[in-house]
């Protein structure tokens, strides 16, 4: 018997029980209980009558460098990281948004060089913008940006490069991150990357 059929059977039994209470029992409080039982049973039966859809979790994505063939592949991995493990989209948006608390990253890949983006991700305070939006001398405006390559997010260098290539692609720019370079990072820092990924596993 399927789960739905089983629940339907239970629902019908409960409603029947309620009707029996209303038909044969005089006790006023019990009658109210019977009434409540009928209402709840009917609700359950109706809910069982509408289309039943469960929401299954998607498979957990893994970043496999061996499958990367073109810069676009790298960018699509970067896209996934941007919106999940990297947690970038918690604060940043691509395109205007009311809920974003940090700068809009639309067109950022065209505006900034990849090296600069890399530095902003791994050492956010290296270059501090000045705030001119008030009178007097401009004040320093330090970014409230976490170190992306450290805990708790802890992206590997490869992952950071794939995010950069995604940002470039989202700005309509040709992707300037070289596949070979990214591959090589993997080989040079294999140990380091591996340990970082273990720590950073969400």
């Amino acid at each position, binding site marked *: 018997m399927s789960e739905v059929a089983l629940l339907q059977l239970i629902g019908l039994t409960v409603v029947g029980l309620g009707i029996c209470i209303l038909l044969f029992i005089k006790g006023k409080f019990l009658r109210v209980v019977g009434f409540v039982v009928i209402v709840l049973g009917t609700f359950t039966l109706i*809910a069982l009558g509408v289309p039943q859809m469960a929401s299954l979790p998607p498979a957990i994505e893994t970043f496999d460098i061996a499958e990367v063939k073109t810069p676009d592949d790298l960018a699509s991995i970067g896209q996934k990281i941007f919106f999940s493990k990297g947690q970038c989209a*918690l604060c940043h948006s691509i395109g205007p948004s009311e809920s974003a608390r940090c700068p809009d990253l639309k067109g950022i890949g065209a505006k900034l060089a990849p090296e600069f983006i890399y530095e902003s991700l791994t050492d956010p305070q290296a270059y501090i913008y000045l705030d001119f939006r008030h009178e007097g001398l401009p004040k320093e405006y330090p970014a409230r940006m976490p170190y992306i390559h450290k805990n708790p997010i802890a992206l590997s260098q490869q992952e950071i490069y794939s995010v950069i290539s995604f940002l470039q692609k989202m700005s309509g720019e040709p992707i300037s991150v070289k596949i070979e370079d990214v591959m090589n990072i993997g080989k040079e820092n294999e140990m380091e990357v591996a340990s970082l990924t273990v720590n950073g596993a969400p």
Partner: protein
Amino acid sequence: MKNHGIIENLKSMVPTVKPSSLFGWSVFWALVLLPALVWAQDAATQAMSVEYRDIPGLGSRNVVWVVAQQHLLLAGFVLGVPIFAWVCEIVGWKTKEARYDKLAKEFTKLLTSAYATTALFGGILLFLLIGLYPKLMAYLSDIFFPSFIVYCLLFLLETVTLYLYWYGWDAMQGNKKTFHLFLGFLLNVFALGIMIVPNAWATFQASPVVVAEGTAIDRAWAATWNPTWWPVNIHRLIANVVLGGFICGAYAGIRYLLAASQEEREHYDWMGYVGNFIGVFGMLPLPFAGYWLMREIYQYNQQMGITLMGGFLAWLFILQAMLIGVLFLGANYYFWMGITYRIPGSERSYRRPILAMLIVLMVCLGVWMTPHSLVASLEEARKMGGTHHPLLGVFGVMSAKMTVANLMILVTFMSFIMYWRAGKQETAAWAKIAKAVMGALLVIAGIAVIVLGVWGYFVPAIIRINYFSVAQVLIVLFVMVTFTPLTAVLMKSAKTTTEMVWGRMPIRAGYALVSNAVMVILLMSLMGYARSSSRVHWHIYGVMRDTSEYAYSPALGYAAAFMSLNTFVFCLLVAFIFWVATMGDKGKKTPDQEEPEPAKIPAGVTPAMAGGAPREKA
């Protein structure tokens, strides 16, 4: 002169409840909370190996589901009741009518007895969460530890205030009354705090704001002030009043059914009326708050918004429409029965307006419940050219739903105004003009809401959401805000043609009150499921994934079975608590107890809530 014998006997009943037992429970749980938090902290630093524990056979999620729902419903009741108990006390203080003071005290009695059980379930929930979801709890305690402390402090303050408020009720009559009212105010302030602090934890899970740098307080504060925090706070605050009102109504309804004497019948008929009134009053602005919340969610994350409105939870909103529809009908049904039964000879004259209102409500409900994509067999779908009906498909989108929701609110409000005016004759010279203006305003408002709704199909979504829907809401609010004082002024000078007779409602009325309470509880369970499952497979949306075997969200039917179970358990729990709380009534009842005469007031001065309460029979 024995209308309120039961309430009167409360005074003598008070000492039978041992203060120490209730107080002891609360202190016990408060103390238990603190070490438990430290425990969670420890878990964060060392034992990261265990991510989940399970209860075999039952399933950890199912257990947490039931316990959390019980805790939440009890908490909703415990936080909602003080709001209107306090308002009721003020009304009693201002109008010098002892009846309201007694009613407020009866509400508070229900509150006091439910309070310890709420804390009990909160404690059980905490232990279960720490035990079953150590990884998640470690993360949350890491971020929210400062607010845990605040929560504990608030809890202690709330407990102390509640005991002062309840046990000091009779001692603080007379010139100390203002201090007692101030205590009631404090009680509500602390209750608000107790609600919004955990709301921050729950809303953080749906719309997290993670700040990596800064002190613990910085991080906790940033996480607390997340995009859906205030929308949920407002929505829950109003919903708690609705829940409290309808549960008190149901309590009165059952007591009415069980009543042995005419005095009891009259009293509980009146109390049921007040409970229903509070519920309806809270229900009117509730859809607006819900709409705001939905808008914030959509804006925060399109994926979550679509999951709710168009994705796998789309049918949930049809069920919600059904429950809200039944609730609206139940509340109106009770109002209408009140007119036909409590005002003798009024049936004929009110038949037509009631029928008109009923038809409008039903048409609105029909539109609301029409889904966008219909359930159709292959053949039917082929004839329609898809699962969207060419004509009725237009009812499926947000513009139509908003319009009918507004119209239903408007009709329910008119029902209430009609009840208020029933059996009275305006004497003011300008009454005719005022009534004409009100009638015209109502018609214009109705037409404006419909026009905006239809126009909404032809403008970009953002214009509709930002201007049209807001305008509809403002129109309906404007009608309520202008009609209420206008009617109050009109009624002040009106003479009563037919006195309301209390205690004559049929058995159906009691059942209608029970049904309303059940609907509200079911709705809260349903929307809790929606809130929780809109996060899909995330503990904390986009930050921490649910990797347990319960990461999937169950289908509606299975969830509905749980909601029904939760509702049933909660109803029994509340019935038990109330039964225990009122056990002393019968034992202590002495037939000749002297009762102070409620102050006579001129007809019509009674505020809206009174609706012509039972009067002393000469």
